[in-house]
């Protein structure tokens, strides 16, 4: 009987000494460290609070790198049982290769965006403490989403992200922003609730919320399993703005101040995307995952092609970038039909795996760079109409360069992280004979080339005779360039599967 089994397993539960798991405490620290910033931000003046927030962003990057080094050196996932209680009773944190990779990526991008935000909300105003509080909660929520193994703790992480992200959309309090924020919140809440319904069905079927344990106990042909996974997927897709649920994203991401847009577009949506992948890679029984993979890849295709075309049709720069986010989300799902769900990955499969996650990382850097650059361009020109960007290259050359370099990665041109990632996906698709995925990767690259070049060409035009530009300090322009250059540096990693990303693969 299950009951007897549970009781005998209970002997193994209870308190566990942490001696054997050295990197573990760092995982908990990565989640709570950003929250410490709430104290100075709420109690001290805005300047002290801002300094503390930036210091915490830097520390967070350091911590993420330490965790990744530990995972990389040991070759095994880092585990931590909160309070010393093992699952199924307690909550476990776990950093495998992909979560450590996401951790470092998001911490680095977050640090970069923080340094940009420190130069002010625009030329004359600094960000209020509320912005920094929301940003730090985004950082905490992201780390929790990448590390938690417990389905309900992940729900809390998703809500933490939602509650922090939605107000970022309407920081200026304009009606259009508030409307976009409300739509975003309603989509996000529906997404959370569907996810939660799926999670309770998993619990009712398996008696645990721990992803690893539940994966062992789920029965592939029980109706509850498929329905639960489907509910969670729809919920997460709504939060990730995966085609066809992307409609909330462009107005929300395009309306915010540039630093907030960058946070939302490069980082916040990565959490539901990552969890969507976790669900099908780490939780779903292999036969179900094999059936779902093509469906998700088709949705990804829809995102790449449809949202790519919508991006091409935009007349505003920020909206174009936001649609490009909705399009670029698609690539990582192209990876799913190219990997196996039972047993170790073959060579081309691990190439697809590496390509998919590398794309997530490269997109985070390039998208943050592009949104910040676009914000600075709009500040200098006083508008963001793509048709009259002429003179931008003279007024804010560094920002235009950052936009173009970030765009290289989106277009999939060498040398860039996006290029390497897309070549990996392409190679894997061809080697496995899945031609349509190869075609989608190529078409998506063409569309991205179209919309990025349109902006760059317009920005290189001569200024209109009566145009006047606002001077933007160098410091404010340079952060986007740094982020864009990181996306380029990612392009120098060798074109082969990264062992690091395979650590702890279920």
């Amino acid at each position, binding site marked *: 009987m299950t009951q007897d089994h549970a009781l005998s397993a209970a002997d193994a539960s209870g308190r566990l000494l942490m001696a054997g798991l050295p990197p573990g405490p760092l995982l908990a620290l990565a989640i709570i460290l950003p929250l410490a910033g709430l104290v100075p931000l709420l109690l001290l003046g805005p300047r002290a609070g801002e300094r503390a927030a930036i210091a915490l962003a830097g520390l967070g990057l350091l911590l993420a790198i330490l965790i990744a080094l530990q995972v990389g050196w040991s070759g095994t996932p880092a585990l931590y049982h909160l309070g010393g209680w093992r699952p199924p009773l307690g909550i476990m944190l776990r950093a495998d290769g992909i979560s450590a990779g996401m951790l470092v990526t998001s911490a680095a991008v977050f640090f970069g965006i923080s340094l940009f935000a420190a130069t002010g909300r625009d030329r004359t105003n600094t960000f209020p403490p509320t912005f920094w509080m929301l940003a730090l909660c985004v950082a905490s929520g992201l780390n929790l989403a990448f590390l938690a193994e417990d389905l309900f703790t992940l729900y*809390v992480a998703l809500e933490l992200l*939602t*509650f922090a992200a939605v107000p970022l959309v309407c920081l200026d309090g304009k009606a259009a922003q508030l409307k976009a924020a409300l739509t975003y*919140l309603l989509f996000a*809440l529906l997404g959370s609730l569907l996810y939660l*319904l799926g999670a309770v069905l998993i619990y009712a079927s398996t008696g645990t919320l721990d992803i690893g344990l539940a994966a062992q106990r789920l029965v592939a042909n029980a109706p509850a399993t498929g329905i639960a996974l489907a509910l969670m997927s729809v919920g997460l897709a709504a939060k990730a703005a995966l085609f066809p649920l992307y409609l909330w994203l462009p107005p929300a991401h395009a309306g915010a101040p540039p630093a907030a847009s960058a946070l939302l577009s490069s980082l916040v949506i990565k959490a539901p995307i990552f969890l969507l992948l976790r669900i099908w890679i780490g939780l779903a029984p292999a036969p179900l995952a094999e059936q779902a993979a093509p469906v998700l890849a088709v949705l990804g295709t829809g995102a790449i092609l449809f949202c790519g075309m919508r991006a091409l049709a935009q007349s505003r720069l920020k909206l174009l970038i936001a649609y490009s986010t909705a399009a670029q989300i698609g690539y990582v799902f192209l990876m799913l039909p190219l990997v196996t769900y039972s047993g170790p990955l073959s060579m081309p499969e691990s190439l697809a795996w590496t390509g998919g996650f590398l794309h997530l990382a490269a997109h985070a850097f390039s998208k943050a760079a592009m949104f910040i650059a676009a914000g600075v361009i709009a500040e200098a020109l006083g*508008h963001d109409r793509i048709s009259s960007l002429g003179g931008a290259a003279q007024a804010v050359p560094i920002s235009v360069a950052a936009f173009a370099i970030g765009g290289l990665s989106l277009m999939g041109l060498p040398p860039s992280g996006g290029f390497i990632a897309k070549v990996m996906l392409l190679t894997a698709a061809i080697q496995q004979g899945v031609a349509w995925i190869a075609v989608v990767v190529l078409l998506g690259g063409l569309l991205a080339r179209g919309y990025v070049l349109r902006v760059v060409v317009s920005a290189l035009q001569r200024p209109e005779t009566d145009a006047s530009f606002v001077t933007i300090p160098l410091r404010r322009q340079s952060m986007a360039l740094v982020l864009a250059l990181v996306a380029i540096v990612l392009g120098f990693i060798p074109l082969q599967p990264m062992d690091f990303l395979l650590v702890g693969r279920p």
Partner: protein
Amino acid sequence: MIGWTIFALAGAGLVGLGLYGVIMRENALHRILAFNILGGGIFLVFGFAARRGAGAGFTADPVPQALVITGVVVAFSATALATAIVVRLTAAQAEERDDAPHAKDDG
């Protein structure tokens, strides 16, 4: 056992009703109420799972029960945040209608 099933069915009913309200009601505050009904239905499914899992001297599995308490508080926070946005949106729309003649152009 049979007796608890009725609560599961009620939970499923609330999920459907809440979903209907979320999709069909136009007023944002009304939608927020519908979200709470949807949430209430999901929490009842937790309660059903808890009651089925009674054992070891407990009349219900305490873990799903504790999760519902967390969930109810999170749902209230979401309601308060959404309502605040609605209130601010109404005010901003009224202000922008008043300022409409000199609306300015920005992205």
